[in-house]
């Protein structure tokens, strides 16, 4: 792994967090981390090691992308980081909480109060309006709505005219923006996004990605995004590369080119031919 540029660690590039967020998270803190994280599906001969001893840290107030080829374990890593699935062994922390030790109810509350999700298929509830969908996490928690924050989100995401519409009356891009607002409304410590642009055309995709980046830069949120699209990954502050269930690289301040190069390096690694590692991004 001498081709990797940096050890995956909790040292974000300070430059990627521009000053001026409304509620800045503790700078340089680790929002989410994994130690020796392993996930095995199946038993015996059919057992598949989707994750194999992963150690990784994600900085608070940063936009991190997890990339890797199909079957690299990137989705599994996200599920475990977000407390959606049980690890086979290893430890996952959200902030200071060791979530691998929590039971289902505690995990559910943690997801409700401290984590947000953006899905590839938007997953809005069809019978609720955009506004009801956005407020759903607060609703479930029985929490009060912070109107100022709600207005900020709606304004930032350009949803002002769409609040009374149901998902079926919204375009894909609009639906995903509603989903982002829903993910952010409870001011979670981390937002996990799973291929958020997978079901969108490139223009809407770009729009959504800029919103995600703005929510980090301007609103001080932390986002961890799984994607297989180098262009999407380039919106992030940092890219973590995954291959065969292991961390295979780390790119700070990525560009589409540097991400592509990093992926290329992974592929050539598999075909055991040496090659130049991905260069550090611009």
């Amino acid at each position, binding site marked *: 792994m001498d081709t990797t540029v940096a050890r995956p660690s909790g040292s974000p590039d300070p430059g990627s967090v521009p000053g001026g967020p409304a509620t800045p998270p503790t700078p340089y803190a680790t929002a989410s981390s994994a130690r020796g994280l392993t996930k095995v599906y199946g038993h015996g001969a059919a057992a598949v090691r989707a994750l194999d001893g992963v150690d990784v840290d994600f900085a608070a107030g940063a936009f991190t992308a997890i990339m890797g080829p199909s079957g690299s374990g990137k989705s599994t890593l996200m*599920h475990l980081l*977000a407390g959606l699935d049980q690890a086979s062994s290893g430890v996952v922390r959200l902030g200071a909480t060791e979530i691998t030790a929590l039971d*289902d109810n505690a995990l*559910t509350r943690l997801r409700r109060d401290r984590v947000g999700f953006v899905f*590839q298929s938007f997953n809005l*509830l069809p*019978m609720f309006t955009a506004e009801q969908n956005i407020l759903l*996490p607060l609703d*479930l928690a029985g929490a009060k709505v912070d109107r100022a924050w709600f207005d900020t989100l709606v304004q930032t995401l350009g949803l002002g005219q769409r609040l009374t519409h149901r998902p079926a009356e919204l375009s894909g891009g609009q639906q995903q923006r509603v989903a982002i607002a829903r*993910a952010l409304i409870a001011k979670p410590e981390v937002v996990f996004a799973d291929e958020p642009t997978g079901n969108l055309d490139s223009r809407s995709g770009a729009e959504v990605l800029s919103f995600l980046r703005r929510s980090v830069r301007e609103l001080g949120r932390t986002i961890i995004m799984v994607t297989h699209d180098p262009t999407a990954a380039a919106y992030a502050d940092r890219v973590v590369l995954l291959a065969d269930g292991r961390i295979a690289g780390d790119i700070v301040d990525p560009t589409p080119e540097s991400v592509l190069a990093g992926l290329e390096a992974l592929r050539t690694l598999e075909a055991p031919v040496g090659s130049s590692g991905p260069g550090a991004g611009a």
Partner: protein
Amino acid sequence: MLRLTLAQMRRSLGRLTAAGIAIAIGTAFMAATLLAGNVFTRTGYDAVTATYGDADVVVQTETLADAAEKLDVVRDLPDVEAADMLLPLGAEIRHGSQRRYQVTLPVPSSPRLSALELATGALPTRDGQIALPDTTAEALEVGVGDHVQVTWRDPYDPEADGEPAEHTDDVAVVGIVDDPSHAWAQYGGAAVVTQDDALRWNGLSLSSQDSVGSVLLVAGAPGVGTQTLLDDVSTALPGATVQTRDEAAADTVREISGESNALLMVVLGFAAIALLVAALVIANTFQVLVAQRTRTLALLRCVGAVRGQLRGSVLTEAAILGFAASVVGLVTGTALAQATLSVLGRADLGVPLPPTVEVTWPVVVVPLVVGTLVTVVASLVPARAATRVSPVAALRPADAPTVSARAGRLRLVVALLLTLGGGAGLVLAVVAALSTDLDPIATLGLGLLAGAASFVGVLVGAVFWVPRVVALVGRGLSATGAGARLAAANTGRNPRRTAATSTALLIGVTLVAMMSAGAATARSSLGQELDNHYAVDLTIESMSDDGALPAGVEQTVAGVDGVAAVAAVRTTGVRIGEDLWFSAFAVDGDRAADVLRDPRTADGLDDSTVLLSADLARALRDGGDGGPQVTLVSQDDDTVRVDLRTQDTALGGRQAVVTSATLAQLAPGAPESALWVRLADDADPAQVLQSVQDALPDEPLVTSSSAAERVTYERVIDTLLGVVVGLLAVAVVIALIGVANTLSLSVIERRRESATLRAIGLTRGQLRRTLAIEGMLIAGVGAVLGVVLGVLYGWAGAATVFAQVGDLHLTMPWRDVLIVVGVALAAGLLASVLPARSAVRTSPVAALAVD
């Protein structure tokens, strides 16, 4: 295509099973009813056959004279050993204060011609003797050697003045008879008397041209075959109907079975309601199955299946399900009927029950055909939906399957017409019944027809209004939390399915509530009528010749538990004016206030006052003699006149109350002929009545009370209500299966949504609660609407029926209503348990899966 259909059925086995149970219950109901019908027929046939004893040949006759004439001819035939008239008549037999109406048979000339066997004593040999069945002997508390009284009247003579004279015969009990074949069990057994006594007690004679139902029973001499005897008798009686015993029984059963067939039809009607509800459940299930298979169906269209094949596949699936479920239902129904029969057989009801049910062709074929047909018809609409799936749907990412929620304009128009037209007809029928003297049958018929039409309208229109009501209630609930808000929103997503599920429950609940409200109204209306009629809780009257009470009765009754006060009463017939006759009562010691149900009735009673019942007061006013001063004229002659002030009171019937002093003036020798009894407030009237009757000595005394009459008819009403509600409960159970089915389908459909909600923070408990609320919302709305509708229908029905009978007291059967709604809510909750279990098992990771 069939292989594919079967494969799809295997995949949806769970859902199909739930739907199949609904059909199976309906067909089991139907099969059991048909089997019960067979048992009725069999029992009737056996009983009729048994009444013929061991007769070989039966001859039908027209009149008594005809029968007597034919009997003489038959008895003279050489091949005939014995011949008798089978002449069941009746007599009122009394012993002490007990009386009983008893079927009597003439003494048979040969034991072969009677189903009865002598247990003890002897058969009557002359007039004035009787052999009683053991049940009657027990009820009258008599044995061999005792005497009973038979009261009878002379034949009615239109020429003569007044009523025919009444006679009382003193009859000796000479024997006790058994009825081993239960031939007369349905009449409460039969007694044996001489033919002359039997005829005289019924005002008949052998020359009578009355068409009394009588047949001749003929027993052949030893060695004479039935056919030979049949030919002999036929030759001797040209033109007469001569049959073998079995032929005659079959004929008779056919004649009398009209009644039990009608009963069968009514019960089958309930089975039809159950199947209708089952059809709603089936239609729902198939709609969702088709929606879930959209992708598969589209794929089939892509690879070349034509629309007809898809429709055929769905209909085949329905036919297979319907047939399989019907077979299960048939077997279950037969097993249930057999089990019931075995239990009843062991309980010895005194009715000759066959040991096993008789499985005839109709019992097998009808439930199978109807069950299968109902299932196929219910799946027609979903089958059409299957043909609408476009091949392109296979290429699109799967969206949540949706079922068209739009309902046609035609449906709305039809529903509105039926509901409004039927409702107007119902109102018309009620108004007509309340205000006019129209034929009650006509108003009842109009009410029934209009009620049925409006109910069909309500059901057809359910898809328009039920979802709105659910939404409204849901909105009300939404304030209670996110779970309720989610549940309410979910019920609104597929209005048609919610409507169908709620409606299935609504049907059963409406009918149950209707019966319950109708029965409650009948109970209180009749009760009010009786209370108006009886001013006293309990009356005991002497039936002795001099009309005087036996000594000591007053003390005996006063000692009975639950009796608060007793007063002896003298009475005499008096009149006001020329022809307004009525009874005047005087309570001994003028303690009327103590024993009248409402003591205030006696306010103002003094020697110059007569208290009048509302009836009498009205009759007086109608006769232009309303008082305030009237003259009472005594029975004996016109000389005793008393001028009195009238006072209208709440006394019932045609009664008037005066003081003892006044009565002494009118009828100085009047004995104490009755007791008025007031019951303790907390006493059970029926119980006290029984205790009083038990305590009374063996004297001719008649006890009467509103409580006694009330108990009699309340028992009838309650039994009927119990039976009907029991039958309707089947429909309600099926509907509740439908609720569970709908919920589990929703859970499957919303797998991804549930996962999303779990991912963003819905706890397992909240998810369970959401489904529980959804189930209770659907069931509760169906139940409450059903109760409202049912009570309205019940009241309308009661108003139509009781308008002419008396005062109408619309009564809300709160207890029954609360039970029904409670059961529905609990069942809705219960119905959500299994679906919720599968829902919470969904991992939140499923939300991220892209299919």
